[in-house]
């Protein structure tokens, strides 16, 4: 008889007023007993609707059954057949709009905690490593991966398993891409990312940090160096600003800069020499996961008041539900249907506030979605000493600009000549993740990396 509780087994967490002062992981993870109790809520439906919601097709009922049976290692391996980085996805996937959205248990009550169970199994495997994976016999073919974020890591892993000699090039000093510079420690501990990277190293993947493809060497020079195919997974690393007056004042950050200073460069540690301002009143503009991350980081480095400013309503916030929930618990204010029109500065060029305008929903547009429009005469000011712009990123142009024959579209995204194979306009160059789609999710990028690995294998074997 399955566990018919209408709610998920609660996730152990520290009290909000304690955790919003430290950077330790908020969701502590299920114990074995909790995981089995939650796994018992799965009805093991024959139709497997959840699997249809997963961008990489993880065999969800199967791995949950293994957890039920107490075979946690087996469960993790089952996930890994389709998803190489489950400890990461279990933490950062927007499950409520993917697998869990389609769960039958969600019709009445909460869906099965698929993400939490995925994380449990993956963590169990990390804590109980079997004999280190042996480096496969080399097939003699060299492949270069540009960028060590989710798409690059999954592409590298798939290729290395097949015996390719893979080198991952990373511009920053640490591998992991957005998983280390963007997503904060309290949501995705860096040690988890490092373990996944170490696993890839054990498979023979080489990581070259401090290497900016397009500058340190171009794509053409990588080909000259003997790489037969190149995967571009350089992400969406060019921050957008609103183009409103005052964005140049000191105290205005892109979310990328704010998060990078705090996460990658450990500005939150007392002995760090990384400069970060210690703001008191912070406005975070935007409503996605990045905005929630920035707001919660601001609180943790000591801000008294942190406000999310978003031009639609709470219903439309693109962030994961769990992040919104956590942010609220931790005392983040949500100011909805508001859009900044100007950032105000003092005589020294420092932020002193923002001027906003209230928004309301207009008529539905062609897509049927209502666009927020400004309410005339509704402008008001809020006092702030820091403003973080978390309104999105577009792909970085360094590679497309320095590579002949590599075309991009109007938004700067790499153009694919074969969407299924993720082939770009340049022979031997494949691309996936945010560099192609614009800013999206970790799991979509990982799925793309995996697909590209297949295409690269076909391409090289077919030569």
């Amino acid at each position, binding site marked *: 008889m399955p566990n018919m509780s209408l709610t998920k087994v609660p996730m152990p967490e520290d009290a909000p007023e304690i955790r919003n002062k430290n950077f330790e992981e908020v969701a502590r993870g299920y114990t074995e007993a909790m995981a089995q109790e939650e796994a018992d809520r799965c009805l093991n439906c024959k139709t497997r609707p959840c699997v249809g919601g997963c961008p990489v097709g993880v065999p969800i009922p199967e791995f949950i059954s293994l957890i039920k049976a107490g075979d946690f290692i087996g469960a993790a391996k089952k996930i890994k057949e389709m998803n190489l980085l489950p400890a990461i996805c279990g933490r950062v996937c927007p499950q409520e709009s993917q697998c869990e959205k389609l769960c039958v248990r969600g019709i009445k009550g909460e869906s099965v905690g698929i993400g939490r169970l995925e994380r449990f199994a993956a963590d169990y495997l990390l804590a109980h490593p079997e004999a280190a994976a042996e480096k496969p016999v080399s097939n003699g073919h060299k492949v270069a991966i540009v960028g060590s974020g989710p798409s690059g890591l999954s592409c590298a892993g798939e290729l290395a398993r097949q015996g390719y000699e893979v080198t991952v090039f990373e511009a920053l000093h640490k591998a992991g891409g957005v998983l280390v510079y963007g997503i904060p420690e309290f949501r995705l501990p860096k040690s988890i990312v490092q373990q996944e990277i170490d696993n890839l190293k054990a498979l023979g993947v080489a990581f070259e940090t401090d290497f*900016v493809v397009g500058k340190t060497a171009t794509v053409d020079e990588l080909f000259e160096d003997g790489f037969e195919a190149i995967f571009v997974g350089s992400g969406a690393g060019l921050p957008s600003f609103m183009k409103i007056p005052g964005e140049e004042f000191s105290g205005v950050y892109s979310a990328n800069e704010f998060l990078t200073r705090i996460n990658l460069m450990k500005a939150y540690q007392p002995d760090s020499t990384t400069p970060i301002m210690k703001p008191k009143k912070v406005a975070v503009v935007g409503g996605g996961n990045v905005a929630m991350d920035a707001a919660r980081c601001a609180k943790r480095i000591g801000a008294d008041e942190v406000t999310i400013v978003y031009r639609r309503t709470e219903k439309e916030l693109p962030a994961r539900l769990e992040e919104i929930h956590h942010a609220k618990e931790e005392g983040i204010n949500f100011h909805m249907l508001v859009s900044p029109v100007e950032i105000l500065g003092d005589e020294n060029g420092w932020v002193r506030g923002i001027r906003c305008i209230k928004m309301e929903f207009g008529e539905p547009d062609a897509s049927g979605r209502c666009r927020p429009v400004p309410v005339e005469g509704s402008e008001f000011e809020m006092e702030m000493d820091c403003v973080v712009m978390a309104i999105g990123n577009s792909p970085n142009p360094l590679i497309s600009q320095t590579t002949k024959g590599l075309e991009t579209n109007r938004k700067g995204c790499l153009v694919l000549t074969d969407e299924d194979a993720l082939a770009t306009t340049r022979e031997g160059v494949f691309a996936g993740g945010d560099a192609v789609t614009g800013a999206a999710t970790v799991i979509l990028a990982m799925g793309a990396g995996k697909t590209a690995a297949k295409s690269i294998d076909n391409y090289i074997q077919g030569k």
Partner: protein
Amino acid sequence: MRDLFKIVNKKVLNPTVTLLEIDAPRVAKKAEPGQFIILRVDENGERIPLTIADFDRERGTVTIIFQLVGATTKALGMMEVGDALADFVGPLGTPSHTEGLKKVAVIGGGVGCAIAYPVAKKLHEQGTVVHSIVGFRNQDLVILEDEFTAVSDIMKIMTDDGSYGTKGLVTDALKSLIDSGEEYDEVIAIGPVIMMKFVSKLTKEYGIKTTVSMNPIMIDGTGMCGGCRLTVGGETKFACVDGPDFDGHLVDFDQLMKRNMMYKPFEQEADCNLLKKGENANA
């Protein structure tokens, strides 16, 4: 394989300016005048951008010259030959445009001379007539005099207090050269923001194209953080990928000066952290 970024040569140029030559073959192979690198001194250090002062493709080395102004540059100044930097990435930014120039005035101010020098050298090597004007606060702070002299057709040294060369500002020397009938295709000015501002103001009056090199606060150097943004001709530009060279007549210097002050209060605190580390190491 990854370079080790060992220091192969160190020269203290004056009490506040140090030269380090770093073993970094990959960077040296691609470096051009006007480009910069980003380095970290150690595993917990911040990332700072420094413009490339010189490079030697055969030896595989890149030279940086820096002023000991903040916590990181002071830590860098404490390193010795044989020590290795944690990170040294580049070359970043767009190289200086020097093609087709027949006669150029190169203006360097203080440690900015370290960046102006490779540009002057490249111009000289390609046959451009180079008039160099370098300015310092006083005689003790003069750097690269011999190097500049070797690549310049006219060489002027200015000091604020007159303790060496001519007393006055670089703009005084530039103005008198222009007024004496010298006609420049371009003026290239690299130094303190305030100096670049006034050089640009002067050359605008004369209608001479002027290039300045920006060195704002940045993290990654690839366009990712947006911290290095500045306003050029009313448009937001990222110094790391759109620059560091910009049209001096279009840059909003006042805004940049304010932005560059952003971490001044923090620097003092970081200095303390650094000093604490030093004390612990000595203890």
